[in-house]
C-alpha cells in the first residue's frame, strides 16, 4: 500500500515538471508583466533596470524557470513581479486563497455527493416512477444552466429577502463578499448565523449543478449493477431488499461516481472560478484570473501547482477507494 502511494506520487512528478514549464511558457507568451507598471508614471531607466533585475527578467527564459523550480521545491515560491508596495509573497497569497476556496468547496461538494447519491439510488431502485422522472427532469434543467447564471439569480433574489429582513428590524443576513477577514464576531448563535449567511448562496449555486451530475452517474451505475447476476443471486438467497441494495449493489455502483467526484474535487480546490467571481470570494479562482490579467508568472504558477497537486492527490485517493470498494481491483 505504502509502496503504491509512493510510486504514484513519484510518477506524477514529471507531470508537475512538464505542466509547470508549459504554464511558465504560456504566461511568458502573454507579454511583459511590468508593461503596465512602466506606463503608470514616468520611471527612470535605473528604476526599470532594477525592477527587471529583481524579478529575474534579465535572465534567459530557461534559467528563470530553473531558478523558480529550485525555489518552489525548497519552499520559496517567489514574489509578484510588480516592485514596491504592490509586491506580494506568492505562497502567502496562494494559501490564503486555498483556505477560502477549500472551506466553500469541501462543504458544497460533500453535500452535493450525499444528495446526488441518495437521489440516484432511489431513482434507480424505483426506475420510471414519478420520483425518477422528476429527478431526471430537474437534473437535466440544472446542468443545462451556466453556473454563473444560477449564482446571479440567487444573488438578485437575496436582495429583496435582505430588504424584507431589514424591514423587520433584523440584520441583512445574506452576504456576498466572502468570509469576513477578521473571522466571525459576536456570540455563538450570531456566529453560526453569520456563517450560514455567508456560505448559503455560493454553496447553493455549486450544489445545484454538482448534485444533478452525481445523481445521474449514481442512477446509471446503480441500474447497471442491479441488472447483474450476483444481485439476482443475493435476492434469490432471500436477503432483504435493503441489504441487497446497500451491501451488494451500492458498493459497486459507487465506483463511477467516485471517479467523477475525484476529478471535480481536485479541480474545484484549484478554484471555483465562476462561483468565486459571482460572489466576490477572494479564493484560488479569482487569484488565478487576477494573476492572469496582471501577467504574474509566479502567482499563476503557484495556483497551478497547488491545483495540480490537489488533482493528483484526489485521483490517488479515488484509486485507493476503488480497491477498498471492489476487492477484485488490486493496487499495483
Amino acid at each position: 500500500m505504502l509502496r503504491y502511494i509512493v510510486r504514484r506520487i513519484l510518477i506524477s512528478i514529471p507531470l508537475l515538471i512538464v505542466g509547470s514549464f508549459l504554464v511558465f511558457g504560456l504566461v511568458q507568451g502573454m507579454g511583459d508583466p511590468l508593461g503596465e507598471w512602466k506606463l503608470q508614471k514616468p520611471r527612470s531607466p535605473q528604476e526599470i533596470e532594477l525592477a527587471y533585475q529583481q524579478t529575474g527578467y534579465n535572465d534567459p527564459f530557461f534559467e528563470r524557470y530553473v531558478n523558480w523550480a529550485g525555489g518552489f521545491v525548497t519552499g520559496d515560491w517567489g514574489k509578484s513581479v510588480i516592485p514596491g508596495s504592490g509586491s506580494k509573497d506568492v505562497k502567502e497569497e496562494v494559501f490564503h486563497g486555498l483556505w477560502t476556496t477549500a472551506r466553500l468547496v469541501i462543504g458544497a461538494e460533500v453535500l452535493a455527493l450525499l444528495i446526488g447519491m441518495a437521489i440516484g439510488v432511489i431513482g434507480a431502485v424505483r426506475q420510471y416512477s414519478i420520483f425518477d422522472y422528476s429527478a431526471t427532469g430537474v437534473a437535466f434543467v440544472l446542468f443545462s444552466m451556466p453556473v454563473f447564471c444560477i449564482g446571479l439569480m440567487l444573488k438578485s433574489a437575496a436582495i429583496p429577502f435582505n430588504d424584507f429582513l431589514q424591514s423587520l428590524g433584523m440584520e441583512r443576513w445574506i452576504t456576498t463578499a466572502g468570509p469576513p477577514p477578521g473571522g466571525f464576531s459576536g456570540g455563538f448563535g450570531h456566529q453560526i448565523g453569520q456563517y450560514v449567511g455567508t456560505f448559503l448562496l455560493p454553496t447553493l449555486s455549486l450544489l445545484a449543478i454538482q448534485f444533478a451530475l452525481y445523481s445521474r452517474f449514481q442512477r446509471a451505475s446503480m441500474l447497471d449493477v442491479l441488472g447483474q447476476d450476483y444481485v439476482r443471486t443475493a435476492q434469490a438467497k432471500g436477503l432483504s431488499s435493503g441489504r441487497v441494495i446497500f451491501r451488494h449493489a451500492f458498493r459497486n455502483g459507487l465506483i463511477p461516481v467516485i471517479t467523477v467526484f475525484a476529478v471535480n474535487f481536485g479541480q474545484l480546490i484549484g478554484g471555483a472560478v465562476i462561483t468565486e467571481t459571482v460572489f466576490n470570494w477572494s479564493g484560488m479562482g479569482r487569484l488565478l484570473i487576477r494573476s492572469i490579467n496582471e501577467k504574474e508568472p509566479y502567482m499563476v504558477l503557484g495556483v497551478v501547482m497547488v491545483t495540480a497537486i490537489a488533482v493528483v492527490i484526489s485521483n490517488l485517493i479515488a484509486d485507493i477507494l476503488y480497491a477498498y470498494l471492489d476487492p477484485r481491483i488490486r493496487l499495483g
Partner: protein
Amino acid sequence: MADPVTTTTAAPSATAAAGLDIAKPRKQWQVILRRFFRHRAAIGGLIIFVLLILFIFVGGAIWKYQAADLNLGRYKAPSGDHPFGTGQIGDDLFAKVIRGTGFSMQIAMVAAALNTILGVVLGSLAGYYRGWVDSAVSRLTDLVLVIPTFLIAAVLSRGTFSTEEIARGGGASNWFQVAIILGFTNWMTVSRTVRGMVLSLREKEFVEAAKALGGGPTRVIFRHILPNTMDVVIVNATICVAQAVLLESALSFVGLGVKYPDTSLGLLINENQNELIVHPWLFYFPFLFIVLISLSVNFIGDGLRDAFDPRQKRVRA
C-alpha cells in the same frame, strides 16, 4: 454498446395480422430510429433544436432590426415592437439574441467536432496499441486537466498573438479562436470512453478474423473497431455540444471569451449582468436561449443513448 453484428428485430404482430406471411426484418438503424422517435423528451429536444436553427437563419433574415441598430430607445420593456426589449444604447435585444445564438451554436459545433475527433483518435490509439502509447495519451490527458483553460484562453485572447493580429487589422475570427480553445481542452471524456471500449473490442473474434485476413492496423481500427463505438461516440458528441455552450458562456463571463465585433449569448449576459434587477429582460432572454440550446442537445443525447442500447426493452415515455 451495440451488438457488433447487425441486429434485426422481428416485425410486430400487426404485419402478420395484415396477412403477410414473411415478416420483413428491420435494419439496425431503423430499430434505433424507431426507438428514438418514441422517446418523447428526445423528440421535444429535437423540435426545440430545429426551431433554434430556424430562429438563427430565418429570424435573422426577416427580423426588421439588425443587431447593430442603435438609438431605438433605451431600456424599453419587451413589447410587440421589441419582443425582448431594448438595452442601454437603444439596441434591439431580439436581434442581438438571434446573432448571439448563432455564434454560440457555431462555437459549440466546432468545439464539439474537434473534441470528438481528438477523443476518438487518441482514445482508439491508446486502446489499440496499449503500452507506451496508452501511457503517453493518459499523461497528455493529465496535462490538459492541470493547465487551466482560463490561462490558455487568456494567452490566446490577449497575448502577443492576438494584439499583433488586431494591429494588422484582422486575423483569425475571435469566435473561431474560442471554439478551438474549447475543442482542445474538453476531449478527455471522449478519449477515456473510446479507449475503454477499444480495449475490450480488440480482443473480440471479429477483430482477430480481420487481422487474420491481412488487415493492417489502420483498416482494423477504422473499418472494424470504430464503427462499433459509434453509438457511444455520438452520444458523447452531443454532451460535448452542451458543455461547449456552457463553457463558452463561462469564458465570456470572466472576459476571456468572445469579444466584439463577434458576440455570443455568454457575452450578452456578461454585458448585462448588472441589469438583472432593474431591467431583468436583458439577462433572462440570453439566459433562456443558453438553457434551450443546452437542454435540447442533452435531451437528444439522452434519447440516442436509450435508442442505441440493445438491452433497452421498454421505450421510455
